[in-house]
């Protein structure tokens, strides 16, 4: 039997319309807006001014702390304005808008397609390079990667786990990357292994991508210490804790990080970005984005410059179908509906999904029938039916005791609930409030 994690999990219907669409390079947009806060942690501080000329790959906002990431220009042109623009939350946030002129790259970046296998620098330099390149977790969580590679004192990494699960229905960007950039990915993994000082790396891929499993297994023989593991299809296997449980059968304790059990998890996209940063000197300025939807004329996987307006992606995928009622940024399970499709693609944008009216409406809420389906669906072992009641009654301290902060916002509970209760919405609210309480306690 195939391996998977043990607790909870659901089986949303799969809709990977774009699985066999090779990655296409999206034409340069006329203008990009690059938000300065595209990662978890402190926003970067802007180091360019209006009217400055910038090149592709030039640093335009500098990381402002350990948990923060550099931001580079994804295009060449003139800085048009530094004003807040709408982002995926619907709020305006500071961003640098650049009018595109030509496509002039920083001369230090190696743009040749040659595979470069030899890793010539040591662990410390690798981490530094990855930090300089502004790499963040590309699975959607956008945690600055250099932080994960800096193992805290007293802890030791034993194994590097590479997340090629892609458990969100609809999304195919990681799948395509594994098929098309296999060797680069492998070298990237070797780089991450060297940085962590581990000799073992395991790539976990769900069984619905047999082509990727086969291809990577074949080429993995050329790379020492890397093994590929097929996993049973079950959402949310892409969660760090679930993936660790599935692959090495260790359980990360509540509130602890994977390093506690000797593991470090990186996404395949992140490993590829590490390859480009270390071997090719290329900062994180573009990423693969799945643009899909049932009625979208041409579901696709695009290689997109960061800052490109989302409506251009949708245009390239055939344009918004008439019956569109909702556009979601991210996967259908964890993503969020956007209020405006002029928002820019950021480092965390893994997919854009266009939903027709029929599929987008929420169903009418009923009453909790105590079926406990939410409890068995929760991969973190929480009791969602209880948490929603507490959140509605503003019992945030009690929510903390019920480990609401362990909630990974996977949405399995809401997905399973026969009464259509907006469980996750209220749990999110509770998390925000509990975090406030925790912070005020620290001060």
């Amino acid at each position: 039997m195939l391996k998977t994690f043990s607790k909870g999990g659901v089986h949303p219907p799969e809709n990977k319309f774009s699985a066999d669409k090779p990655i296409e390079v999206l034409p340069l947009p006329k203008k990009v807006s690059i938000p300065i806060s595209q990662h978890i942690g402190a926003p970067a501080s802007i180091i360019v001014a209006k009217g400055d000329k910038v090149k592709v790959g030039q640093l335009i906002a500098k990381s402002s702390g350990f948990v923060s990431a550099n931001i580079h220009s994804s295009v060449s042109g003139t800085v048009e304005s530094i004003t807040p623009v709408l982002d995926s939350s619907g709020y305006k946030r500071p961003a640098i808008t650049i009018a595109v002129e030509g496509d002039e790259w920083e001369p230090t970046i190696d743009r040749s397609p040659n595979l470069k296998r030899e890793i010539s620098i040591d662990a410390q330099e690798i981490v530094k390079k990855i930090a300089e390149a502004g790499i963040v977790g590309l699975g959607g969580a956008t945690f600055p990667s250099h932080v994960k590679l800096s193992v805290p004192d007293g802890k030791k990494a034993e194994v590097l786990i590479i997340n090629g699960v892609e458990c969100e229905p609809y999304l195919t960007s990681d799948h395509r990357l594994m098929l098309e950039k296999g060797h680069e990915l492998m070298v990237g993994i070797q780089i991450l292994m060297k940085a962590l000082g581990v000799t073992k790396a395991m790539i976990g891929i769900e069984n619905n991508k047999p082509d990727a499993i086969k291809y990577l297994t074949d080429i993995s023989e050329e790379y020492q210490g890397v093994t590929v593991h097929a996993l049973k299809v079950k959402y949310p296997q892409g969660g760090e804790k679930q993936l660790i449980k599935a692959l090495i059968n260790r359980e990360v304790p509540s509130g602890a990080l994977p390093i506690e059990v000797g593991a470090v998890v990186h996404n395949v996209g992140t490993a590829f970005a590490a390859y480009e940063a270390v071997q090719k000197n290329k900062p994180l300025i573009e990423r693969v984005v799945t643009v899909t939807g049932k009625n979208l004329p041409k579901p696709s996987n695009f290689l997109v410059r960061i800052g490109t307006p989302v409506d251009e992606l949708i245009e390239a995928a055939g344009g918004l179908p008439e019956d569109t009622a909702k556009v979601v940024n991210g996967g259908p399970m964890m993503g969020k509906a956007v209020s405006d499709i002029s928002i820019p693609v950021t480092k965390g944008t893994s997919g854009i999904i266009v939903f027709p009216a029929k599929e987008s409406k929420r169903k009418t809420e009923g009453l909790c029938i105590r079926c406990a389906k939410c409890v068995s669906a929760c991969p973190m072992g929480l009791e969602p039916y209880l948490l929603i009641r507490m959140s509605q009654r503003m019992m945030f301290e009690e929510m903390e005791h019920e480990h609401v902060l362990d909630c990974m916002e996977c949405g399995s509970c809401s997905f399973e609930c026969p009464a259509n209760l907006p469980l996750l919405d209220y749990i999110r609210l509770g998390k925000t409030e509990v975090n406030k309480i925790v912070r005020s306690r620290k001060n």
Partner: protein
Amino acid sequence: MNSIIVTAILVLGILGVVLAIVLYLVAQKFKVVEDPRIDQVEAVLPGANCGGCGYPGCRGFAEAVVKSDDLSALFCPVGGNDTMAKAAEIMGKTAEAKDPMVAVVRCSGSPEHRNRIVEYDGASSCKLATALYSGDTGCQYGCLGLGDCVAVCNFDAIYIDPETLLPVVDEEKCTACGACVKACPKSIIELRKKGPKGKRIYVSCINQDKGGPARKACKVACIGCGKCAKVCPHDAITIENNLAYIDYNKCKLCRKCVAECPTGAILEINFPPRKKKVEGQTENVETK
């Protein structure tokens, strides 16, 4: 057989008496003597238990009144000055009279002024909606209209107007307990001085965007142009973050700012209709 029953009755009976005595002694030993004035003060309070005073319930407030030497920091918004005077009398003090306050909603963005551009179909709670998105119009500051303020009001003093989709405060019923102020996640509601005969003037907008974007989002947004501050003869208006704010302590209700505001973001409440002449002036100002 009989003797067993008798012994059982005896043993349990004696046990009962002994325990009763013990309990009585313990109760005596730990008896809490409460200041009788707490009851007296509580009796004059409205008994709404709304928490507007900052204490848990009216009894909590009564305890605070009895304990503190200085009453100036204590106020029952529901009972108002009369109640405070009575409470002070029990304590042998006098209470300073405070200006009556009322809740005001600082948003005028009805659908005719700001378009709804997306549709929200999540749970009906402003607090929840703010955690998810910025609102269904182009204005990220404005009222969400899902009525968290309505839900918390103990006095039935606030309701959502079905036409404007905005909350309306019933001045007669509003006690200024401040529950709605705390409940609104967008910080739209504020307590303001009720004013003589209920007359008030305030800026009904909290949009901090610059003029262009603010106006695009809502026709009646404050654009921070500062025209009101310039005309105000009493220095009552400050402009901060592209937003005007009227200090109710300085405002003399002359209404000059209302006529000057190019977007109509300043509201005048409970004034008699303007005379013809004044209206003529208003038009002049607008056509300038």
